[in-house]
């Protein structure tokens, strides 16, 4: 490793983590891509997320958001979709990033984890994409349990079960 490496100043532990991440990324092209996963690509606060289509119950326009007093920061409120009142989160905020302005949030993606429902608020929807689960490598730096992995284009694959669990955990903690 050359001393000119831009992260040479980092502590050894963080440098090792980055090296591990780099090795993971370097492996990806060699794997034959088998498109076994359909994902909905959504945008939140400058980040791109892939939500497995199988877990998506519905996509709707965001008309109105009711606030939850004392709710955690990532839980933006309640939305009504097809008659159901569902807790709504912002992915970027849940993953530790900032919040978008309410007026920027245009769409609601309702995901299911067993009988549980959670609404993801998003600024815009990009597309539905067929991809391979294997391209989303577990990022050793990703601290958030709801992110199952990241691909070469820095799209984060959402684990819907972990996402719902994490959002509800934060809600319960905020009581």
């Amino acid at each position: 490793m050359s001393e000119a490496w831009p992260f040479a100043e980092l502590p050894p532990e963080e440098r090792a983590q980055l090296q591990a991440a780099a090795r993971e990324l370097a492996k990806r092209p060699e794997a034959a891509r088998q498109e076994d996963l359909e994902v909905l690509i959504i945008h939140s606060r400058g980040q791109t997320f892939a939500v497995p289509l199988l877990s998506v119950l519905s996509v709707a326009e965001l008309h109105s958001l009711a606030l939850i007093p004392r709710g955690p920061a990532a839980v933006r409120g309640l939305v009504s979709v097809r008659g159901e009142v569902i807790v709504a989160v912002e992915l970027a905020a849940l993953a530790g990033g900032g919040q978008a302005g309410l007026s920027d949030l245009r769409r609601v993606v309702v995901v299911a984890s067993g009988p549980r429902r959670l609404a993801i608020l998003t600024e815009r929807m990009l597309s539905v994409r067929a991809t391979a689960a294997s391209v989303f490598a577990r990022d050793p730096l990703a601290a958030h349990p709801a992110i199952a992995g990241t691909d070469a284009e820095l799209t984060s694959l959402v684990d819907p079960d972990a996402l719902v669990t994490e959002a509800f955990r934060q809600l319960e903690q905020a009581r």
Partner: protein
Amino acid sequence: MSGGDALMAVFRDEASDGLTRLARLLLELEGVTDEKTLSERVRELFRLAHSLKGAASTVGRNDLTEVAHELESCLDKLRRGQLAPGRQLIDAALTAVDVLTAGLSEQVSEADAARVRAALGSASAEPARKASRKGRKDSRGEAPAAPAPPPSAPAAPQTPGEVAFALLPALAGLARSPGQVGPVLALLSALEAHPAAGAHPQALAVAASMRAVLQAERGSPDLERRRLESLVEAADLLQTELDGGATRAEAELVVRALEEVQATAAAPRPVAPVAPAAETLRVPVALLDAMLYRVEELVATKLRLDHQRRTVEHLQDLVAQVTAEQGPRGVEVRQRLELVRRDLAQEVVGLGLLAQVLQDDVRDVRMVQVGPLLEPFRRTVRDVAEACGKRARLELVGEEVRVDKRSFDLAKEPLTHLVRNAVDHGLEAPAARAKAGKPELGTVRIVASAQEGQVFLEVSDDGRGIDLDAVKAGARARGLLEAGRELTEQEALELIFQPGFTTAQAATTVSGRGVGLDVVRTNVARLGGRVDVFTRPGEGARFVLALPLTLASSGGLFVRVGRVLYCLPLSAVEEVRVLEPGEVGVSQSRLFARVRGQALPWAAMGDVLAQRGTADPPAKPTPAVVLALGERRAALAVDELIGQEEAVVKALAPGTPRLPLVAGATSLADGTLVTVLEPTALLASLAGMAAAAEHPSARERRARVLVVDDTLTTRTMLASVLERAGYEVLVAPDGEAAWARLLQERVELVVSDVDMPLLDGLGLTRRLRASPEHAALPVVLLTSLATSADRAKGAEAGATAYVVKTDFDPAAFLQLVAELTGAPR
């Protein structure tokens, strides 16, 4: 529909499911070779028959009870290995299932009952012949798949028994080709003509009866299943008889059964005088929930349309101003606009009516009679009484009252608590009852009634009543009541709903669970209901739960707090008013509003929602909402009172964690979603804030708990659980060490083991109770000693609560600790 009809409908549903399962298991039984599976299936079969018998007996259907009893007895023998699951037994059991199934809609005839008895009796006498008939079983089993044999072709029977055996495949052929009775008649002729048949007069009598039935059947396009089964049974009996095993009684029963079916062959069977079952369809509750959601959306759409109508009216006013000077053209514009308004108004009215009817219909579908839902409480009363060494029975009144199943499910827990309390705390022990001139068997009564959109569930007992002096003493000891303050009876009764309230008598199974009446009241209030209590010394206590008939509320008060709109259920709003600055003042570091001569706790709703410290009194007139739930009232300042609106409160989607301040959400006419606040939680939150303001020291010092246990593991575990929950924990390895610490340190609670060296938990508790300084200190005994006698010793020593280690549940334990220390939960 009367209560009896409703119970019968429940029975029919349940029995029908059970019989379907029975039939399926019986049919599968033949294919089971694995012993373990076989044993499991047989056990389940027995259990199903047993349950069916019990249920039939409960609804007074003795005819079904008898048949189910026959089936149960036979399956019991099978379960005990006294019978093998042969074909004959399975057929006989299926016959019983069929008779029972038919019996759900009409009375079981004596002939049918006899037929079942004969079939099951014959099958139960099977084991001796089992081995010899194995081969027959196989060939009989294959018969239905084979083409119907010609009358004389394959049989070539050599003995009367073989002729009889050939009857079975012939009857199977008859089942496939009704009316083609020739082959069977030919075999019967062969049997009757056989030289050896003369030795079997019973067999000949049965054969003659079969012939009579078949001749009546000749050419008939359809063969009633019941008749075919009788013929099969008769053929079975023929074999048995010709093998030398049937009794005269069995033969006579079969002959009678055949005569019966023959008699009914010509005329249709009269319908027995049993009330016809209303046609019902089972629908998953989730589907009804979904329908209700959709209907509520429809109501919301109607509200939005109405909003549009008002917009058009406003537009009309504007247009009228603009077009006033424009002659006929202006008039035409105004007329057209008026037509649009009228059409829209009519549509709104029509849609409103439709939505209302549909909403009522869907809600009505969700309404069930409360009787069957209350039935399980009989078991609760019986079990709790047994655990307390008492005798008790449950009386249900008003079983026909209909409630929203969802409301009832949510109210079940508080109701269970009240029923348990009634037995545990309300009823006296048998000896005390006898002494008081009461029957030893105590009565707990649940009375259901409905009035003006509310359902009332009263739980009463004929026990000792609530000892108001003990209540007041307990409240004083807990610091809930100032010394010397006089209370009315109702005020004293209200004390039992105070968080942390308990009496020394409460150290029993129920109180050991760490749930107080304050939790009951809170949970009922969360449903939009309330709990009231009444008592008469020596005659018992009565708790009345008033619940909304359905959960969807129809009225809300909309307020603005900051820039956010909130909705408050109107049921909790006593009044709204604008408070002048002079009407809000400070007393003992707390803010109060003077409302109609009363001082009510006051806070800005924004502060309560954000859990911020109470602000200064307002300097200008402030709109306020007076919330009232039972005895608890408070005035909350808002930024704007928007007004009262029809509101459909939607609960949060299933599986969502409970949000303490949120009851649900509702849509405004323009589609804006508004959070519906939970009044109970608002009041509780305000009370918590007020308490913190009143006692600043409480915020600085955490409640302190002394854990006394001689095992390090338990001490460590308890300390860890308590410390994680924010308590300060002191520990001691035995009662003496604990006592020494208590003389030096102040604690809010003692959690002690019982069995310890030097001074045990009971001794420590007694010593504390005898000490003026520590008499009121709550003591929780946490022990592995679990018998009623052990609990009684704990109560006798003066323990506040008794928790058995094997039942230890950290969450329930912490709830109990919070109650006893007065800490916020």
